[in-house]
């Protein structure tokens, strides 16, 4: 009996793919016929530049066969061979990490041999992926939500370790349902100082300020935010956002601001300040972003062309274009200069939004799209890069026919995370791309997942990816307690809040 059990056990173990060993790659290589193309991978991890510390880029071979043999090798280090009965290629974590580190600045070759049903092997051309010498920030925080329109339920902020592909929940909106967790911002990519905007029906709208492990609550509406490099100042937008629906657009939605403006929150003094230059009555200021040295603030600004604040959407919305503006700021004297049009919408013919300055201060990446403030809903939105010194701008080579938006720089200014809807126009996914010192982008690749078929049935969208240099350590309980608490920071909030339209609606 014991022998039978032993034989049975060994047979089962030997039957498990990978456990029973795999055919020698070189032997297969010798006997295989050659296909005159590279194999089709899903997600498309071909011809890309990989960060040296990225987790395994697992994929599915979109080829038919009965056995799949994949070999990943570089000039140095131990090659990885994955042999399986199905087309899923799951790369082991530790050998992958070692292989990447040994091939910094070099190339990884991916060779695929597929056994056909007649027993013959077919080998494809080698896929060559570059391994960059520039590491990527180890964490990325983002939000996932359904493709929804008015009523939300299932929103969640996650953080992901890019080195291991492990995802964990930061804040789930079900904890304060009905509610919504919106934009999150970190101070210089450091999650120990964070800002998270919350909207809830039962506990009010607020912003959570996380600093040194403690969570404070500011009981007012915050929109898009940007930390000053000194960490004492946050500029945020106050937006009266609404949305409308188009009958024949690819993406049915369109969002717009009836009114918007920028305000300043002094973290050190716990005080909200209104700066007239960036809170003008006739203008729609939004999307703030500090320069790397903190000497000026970039933001987008359009003109209010409507007087009726009830008609939805407002008249002439399609003609509202946002320019890229800049205003100097003197940290020592705490004074603001004069607003300057950095890149005019009249010159580009498009709206310029979501400016993000690279941490080295050299480049600024922004969205350009037909009109309005919402690039993420316009298929025509593309990412552009501008050399701040020369003001020369051009589209990044990572754009698609669909919307690209919500971009974030890594702390070393060499990686860009952004959301793209290139896979069908509706479901936004996070892509990573290398940006070289000249501002040229490599081919982007979708955020790797442990399950290579993950995206095939994931019906939610990703947005607001933000790189982080470390793990966000504040427990979810602390965030939820702060949201649900009646206690809040004693912030001096001006009587006129951002929620109040500054141009009063016409009487009926």
């Amino acid at each position: 009996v014991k022998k039978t059990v032993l034989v049975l056990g060994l047979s089962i173990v030997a039957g498990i793919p990978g456990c029973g060993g795999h055919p020698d790659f070189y032997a297969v290589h010798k006997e295989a016929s050659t296909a005159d193309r590279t194999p089709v991978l899903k997600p498309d991890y071909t011809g890309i530049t990989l960060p040296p510390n990225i987790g395994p880029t697992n994929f599915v071979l979109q080829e038919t066969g009965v056995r799949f043999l994949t070999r990943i090798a570089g000039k140095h280090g131990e090659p990885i061979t994955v042999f399986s009965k199905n087309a899923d290629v799951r790369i082991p974590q530790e050998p992958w990490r070692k292989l990447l580190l040994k091939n910094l600045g070099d190339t990884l070759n991916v060779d695929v041999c597929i056994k056909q049903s007649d027993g013959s092997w077919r080998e494809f051309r080698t896929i060559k992926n570059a391994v960059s010498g520039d590491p990527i920030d180890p964490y990325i925080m983002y939000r996932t939500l359904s493709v929804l329109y008015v009523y939300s339920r299932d929103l969640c902020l996650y953080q992901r370790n890019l080195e291991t592909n492990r995802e964990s929940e930061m804040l789930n909106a079900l904890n304060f349902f009905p509610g919504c967790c919106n934009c999150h911002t970190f101070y210089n990519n450091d999650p120990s100082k964070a800002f998270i905007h919350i909207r809830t029906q039962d506990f009010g709208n607020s912003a959570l300020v996380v600093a040194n492990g403690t969570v404070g609550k500011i009981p007012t509406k915050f929109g898009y935010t940007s930390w000053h490099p000194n960490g004492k100042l946050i500029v945020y937008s106050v937006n009266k956002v609404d949305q409308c629906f188009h009958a024949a657009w690819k993406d049915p939605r369109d969002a717009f601001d009836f009114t918007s403006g920028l305000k300043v929150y002094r973290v050190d003094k716990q005080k909200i300040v209104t700066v007239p230059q960036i809170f003008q009555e006739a203008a729609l200021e939004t999307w703030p972003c500090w320069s790397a040295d903190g000497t000026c603030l970039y933001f987008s600004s359009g003109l209010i062309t409507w007087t009726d604040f009830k008609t939805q959407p407002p008249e002439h919305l399609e003609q509202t274009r946002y320019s890229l503006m800049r205003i100097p700021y003197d940290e020592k004297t705490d004074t603001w200069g004069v607003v300057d049009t950095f890149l005019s919408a009249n010159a580009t013919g498009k709206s310029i939004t979501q400016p993000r300055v690279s941490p080295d201060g050299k480049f600024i990446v922004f969205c350009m799209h037909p009109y309005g403030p919402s690039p993420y809903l316009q298929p025509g939105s593309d990412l552009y890069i501008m050399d701040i010194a020369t003001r020369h701008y051009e589209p990044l080579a990572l754009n698609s026919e669909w919307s690209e938006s919500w971009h974030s720089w890594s702390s070393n200014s060499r990686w860009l995370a952004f959301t793209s809807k290139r896979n069908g126009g509706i479901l936004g996914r996070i892509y990573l791309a290398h940006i070289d010192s000249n501002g040229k982008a490599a081919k982007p690749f979708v955020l790797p997942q442990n399950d290579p078929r993950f995206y095939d049935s994931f019906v939610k969208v990703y947005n607001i990816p933000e790189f982080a240099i470390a793990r966000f350590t504040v427990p979810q309980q602390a965030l939820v307690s702060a949201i649900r608490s009646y206690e809040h920071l004693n912030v001096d909030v001006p009587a006129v809040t951002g929620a109040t339209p500054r141009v009063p609606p016409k009487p009926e």
Partner: protein
Amino acid sequence: MKPNLKTVPYITAILFFISYFLFTLLYIDPRLIFTFNGLNKFSFVFEFSREYAASIAFVPGGFAKLCATLVVEACEHAWLGAFLLTLIAGGLTLGTAAFVSKIRQKPLFVLYYVPAILFLVMLSRYSMHYLPAVLSMLGSVILALVYQRISGESAIKRCALFSVFFLAAYYLFSFTAVLFGVLVIVHEFLVRKNKIFPVLYTAAVLAVVLFLFRLFVFPFDRIFTYASIVDFRRPLLYLFLAVPLSAFLAGLSPFSTVDFMKGKKKSDHERIAMVLYITRGIVVLMAVALTMTWAARDWTTKTLRELGSVIYCDRNCLWNDILQKKHSFLFRNSPNWQSPTTLLTAHALYRALYHTGRLGTDMLTFPQITDPEPLLLWKSSYSIYFPAWVAALESVMDLGMENFAERIAGEAMENMGPLPFLLFRRTIIQAVKGNDECAHVYLNKLKQMPGSGQIARRLENGTGAADLSSNPGVVRLRSFMDTCDYVINRADEEKALLNLLKSNPRNRMAFEYLMAYYLLSRRPDMVVHNLYRLDDLGYREIPMLYQEALEIYRQRDSTFNTPLAKLASDPYTKARCERFLKLMQLYDSQSRGSQAALVSEFGSSYFFFFTFGYSTGGKS
């Protein structure tokens, strides 16, 4: 021959549960339970995916949620659903009977049926969000029963067993583990009496453990997510199940039969007690009967059933079933679109009439008022009323308003969960719009749902998996799709339908709905001005209601000579119009019987509807 009294409870039980099964199958109709899934804010969706498995395995109470989901999914097949629901009721009855009989001898057997009856009331209201709680209670009773049978006398063994079972109950049924604790303590109190203290101490320690578990081990969201499914804050639950069950299990000594069934000569005191016993039995039986009657005849329940039935038929394209239903009770006083059931019934009627080719002729054979809202549920689809979303989704998809459909489907899926019928429609919408890759994501998600593989394969088989866009159904819908852009928020039904006809003048449904819109808005001029479209759409004759609108228009404008469709109007319509006008003259002069004649002859005509602002339908 003396009847064998011992077999009475068994015969009663068999008869009761056969009746229970038939009542559930034929009256409650488990298919409606399946239809209501998600419509009342709680949805049960099972899927074959790691995420789902994790949400079950790593959440206290996940097991109860899984069981409830499987039961609700099984309700798609009426007989299977009825069988499972009867099984749950049987489990509740037999489990409690077995538990109680161990601690009190021969209690009044009729009381065992109380949980089953209350469960039936819950079913008759389609309140399935209580199902995980009910299943958890059943599980707790069964665990308590097992404890009762195997605990033995040893205090250590009892405490160890109690701890293990309690933690297992917490893992499987979440906070319903408390019920298990209560049952065990009741058992210990009545059976072991003064030996209860070790178990009490253990219970106290476990309560602390449970509290710490909730605080540190399971994150906030898990607890709250689960609480939204098993909501113990609702007093109704206690009213329906917890209170009678607890009182029952606590051992109501007056209901015990032990003192009366000894067969000896009875004293006066015993005779009085026997009378009291019989009286109590009758009261309980009457209460049970009343509960069943209430469950069956309650107006709310009837309306709910009607609503569920209409949604079911509408979703499954059972047009004749919709048209043959007796909707008269809904329109008892007059059609009132404020009532959601009436609104959705009218909506389903329009859709059924269109699909059976009768919208232009028989629309007014059902009671109507001058409000076109039920046609497309234009305003209702912006409110938070899930059944209206689902109903509107079907119509606007058929019409070709794919972006509007996508908006509704998005709202519905976010709030009702990824239900298979919503995933299916989103797949179609994205395929129609040419977003194939996105359509495949929805389709792959759909394939993870049990029983949906066939639908998914059918969708793919027409074309091959790679190209949903060339599926014949998708191609047909695409030919009707809106290609003229406009902002939906600024539009009304008329603009939306006109734009559909601008995108494709051969969109017959858009045309008929537009005409119905004009008819219901009492705008015969617009009906007449759109009659020219009949030629393109291949009509052989002008539908009756359009002809009547044409006669009305001619009466108002005698010089009217607009070139109409090639089709001629029926002379009989003109004669009817003249007859109506004569009757109207009599009515205006308050002639006796003229009103009755008007209603009986013209109650379902456009002449009547245009004049009085409502139609009487088939009613005289």
